């Protein structure tokens, strides 16, 4: 594959931006991830799928820097990434959403989205408290970004509503808004469609495609719904029992015997 190429629907997929090399992650004696390598290209939608307990969320946590693998290397934008704290990873332009929504329940939607701007705030505690000059200008600029994302995800009507009062599907959307507010270069989505009905899934899929299309954001997502994954993603990594059993375009993966076995189940010898 050349350095960059254009997809059938006219999007440009760039060179590799993140590469996982022989990652192994252990919790005590349990090997959650066993020697997995794959890459993520700039501008693509990359899915990680697999049955329950396959190690998908662990993988996402490795990318987001929450877990540090015992073996293997994470390469990001051409250099090896040392062990980092999650906030340092966030500063590098990686944002995520969570499987079990992790919003600030008591705060309004707008305030939640504003927290996503945290890494872009440069003024100190003192000037923030006084809210004069620079701090004020900074907040106005950040609010503008937040408002554009609120507009983009069509959640204007709940701007001032406390998150605790929202239904599940909308909370998921607010979480996406918060992650987008960080203006990430890579967006990690942990089961963005879990627990949604068909209509909510369609909405969310549209938003994910729109985000990728409008902002050119690279997206790595974990998802259970095979239909959704196959429709959305450019390339798919399939995991089972911590191992990589498949990697390629949706159609390649769909015809991969190991993948079919893992999903449909075969007798293990």
């Amino acid at each position: 594959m050349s350095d960059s190429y254009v997809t059938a629907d006219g999007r440009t997929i760039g060179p590799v931006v993140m590469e996982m090399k022989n990652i192994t992650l252990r919790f005590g004696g349990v090997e959650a991830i066993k020697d997995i390598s794959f890459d993520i290209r700039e501008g693509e939608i990359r899915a990680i799928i697999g049955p329950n307990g396959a190690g998908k969320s662990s993988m996402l946590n490795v990318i987001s820097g929450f877990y540090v693998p015992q073996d293997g290397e994470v390469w990001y934008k051409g250099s090896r990434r040392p062990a980092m704290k999650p906030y340092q990873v966030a500063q590098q332009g990686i944002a995520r959403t969570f499987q079990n929504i992790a919003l600030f329940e008591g705060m309004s939607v707008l305030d939640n989205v504003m927290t996503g701007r945290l890494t872009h705030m440069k003024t100190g505690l003192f000037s923030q408290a006084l809210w004069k000059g620079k701090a004020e200008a900074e907040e106005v600029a950040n609010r503008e970004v937040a408002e554009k994302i609120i507009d983009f995800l069509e959640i204007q009507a709940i701007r001032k509503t406390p998150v605790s009062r929202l239904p599940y599907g909308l909370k998921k959307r607010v979480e996406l808004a918060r992650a987008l507010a960080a203006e990430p270069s890579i967006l990690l989505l942990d089961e963005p469609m879990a627990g949604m009905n068909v209509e909510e899934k369609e909405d969310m899929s549209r938003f994910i495609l729109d985000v990728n299309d409008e902002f050119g954001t690279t997206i790595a997502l974990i998802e259970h719904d095979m239909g959704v994954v196959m429709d959305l993603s450019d390339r798919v990594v399939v995991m089972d029992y911590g191992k990589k059993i498949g990697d390629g375009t949706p159609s390649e993966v769909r015809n991969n015997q190991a993948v079919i076995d893992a999903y449909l189940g075969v007798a293990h010898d």
Partner: protein
Amino acid sequence: MAELLTRADGPASVPALLHRNAKQFADAPAYREKEYGIWQTWTWSQTRDEVEALALGLMDMGINEGDFVAIIGRNRPYLYWAMVAAEMCGAVPVPLYQDANAEEMAYVMSHCGARFAIVGDQEQVDKIFEVQDQLPEFEQMIYLDPRGLRKYDHAAMAQYSDVQERGRKTRQTHIKEMEARQAKLDYDSTGVMLYTSGTTGKPKGVVLSNRNVIETAKSSSQFDDLRQTDDILAYLPMAWVGDFIFSVGQAMWTGFCTNCPESADTLHVDLREIGPTYYFAPPRVFETQLTNVMIRMEDASRMKKWLFHTFMALARKVGAAILDGKEVSQWDRFKYKLGEAFIYGPLKNTLGFSRVRVGYTAGEAIGPEIFDFYRSLGINLKQLYGQTEATVFITAQPDGEVRSDTVGVTCPGVELKIAENGEVFYRSPGVFVEYYKNPESTADTKDAEGWVATGDAGFIEEGSGHLRIIDRAKDVGKMADGSLFAPKYVENKLKFFPNILEAVVFGNERTACTAFINIDLTAVGNWAERNNIGYASYQELAQHPQVLETIQNHVEEVNASVAQDDMLSGCQIHRFVVLHKELDADDGELTRTRKVRRRIIEEKYADIIAALYDGSKSVSTETEVTYEDGRKGSIKATLGVRDAKVMPIAARMAAE
């Protein structure tokens, strides 16, 4: 620049009005829209510049005099500007309903042969692309919101802001020609073409001249003392004549500010923030708001409930009288002031009506309880009667003469006459020019002397001189025994119950009246929740025995009230069914303005109507439904047919 045609009493075209306002009210707000959480404002002089830039861009794209420009989208300043810009180029704006489906849009756009379309977003762009093959004259699309459109083929489309940019760049090339075209616009040139929603058959294009628009705007603004400092909220469909007259005609004439909401979902918040001083809503909106208030009051604490009910009782007693300036005792006035502080004021604020000076409702009859509720709060809600062909205004209620059962006295400049069969005719400066490409219909509606048939049956009340409308003239019929049949009269009485959303009454040339009824899911669903009644679907709730019982009581109450009326006592409902689905515009059962299409309903539900008249106790039926995205499905149901108690007809029995 070339002098624009004016008359002794003011500018002679909508663009000329804009130029006048840009000079006279240069720094006053003309349009506001909430975007990114902030109200963005354009002054009149800024508005003129924006409109001119777009018009110049259209000139550069080769727009000709007399071209039609379709305008489709939700209420946004940009689209209002597009209408004026089209006129500046000598073209004719044709606003369309944004929720129209692709076929409906194809019909209208090919009927007028629109060359340009200015649309809101991807949804509208997609619809036009879908039917483009049917539109040979169509050339260019201009869109507002670029979202999702980046990868579309831009050979035949451009972004609104780019067109404006193009206009600014080529100003020198086109300004002379454009000014010359504007200078030609006079009172007789076409100001706008609006398609009627059409309760029967295909929509008709109503051509309105600048005279229609400006004369109507002028006299109606005087009638209600509209001022330059007024604020309105523009949220009703742009294709509807009312919105054009309020947000363009009257706004241009008086120079008041048109405010556009952020999105349809935020309407309620935006209404509160703007607090319009001049407000229009169809009865349904007032009904929904009242239902919501009542539902929320049920959840309030006992103290609050008591306060609410006590003061509302007082308001019902004296509120309307105080509003009309009638005599009310000092003690009641004092109590009403207390109520204003505790209940009415905060309630009006929540509803967004704190500043309303003039409020109108029209289109359908409004329930007396609903009407009185708002008036008793001190909101000057009035009724008017109008139609597209009259450029809205035929009659309206003057301050101090407001009642729920009339539609008021003739507006300035309007003459009325009632034909032998009861049909109302009018003549006014607002009378439309013609139906576009449809001389037969024009001749059917408007006679040589300029009298226009409204299609409504009514009479002028003796004493007050107010007009009362009974029903659509063509729907008024005779029962088998020769007594008068006016379905709408009965349907309105039914719809005044919050539990009933829609009703259709049958009985023309039959021995007895029967009815279809749609329950109101908000009201009935809330009632079910409170009474621990489980239901899985609209259909199940609609057929719940207790729901049927409640509806039966409503029908019998209506029968009792209909029996009081000498003329219409034959219209009591003998049997009814509660329908398993809501009547819907997407299924062609209602018009886009939510009027019942009787013929279509009669055909579609022929089996149920048959069951209403053959005495059976239930009926099984299957109905095709259309989803919003155009897919089709079907619903099967077994509906119970109920008999309702009928009151003896007092007057006739005495005569016999």
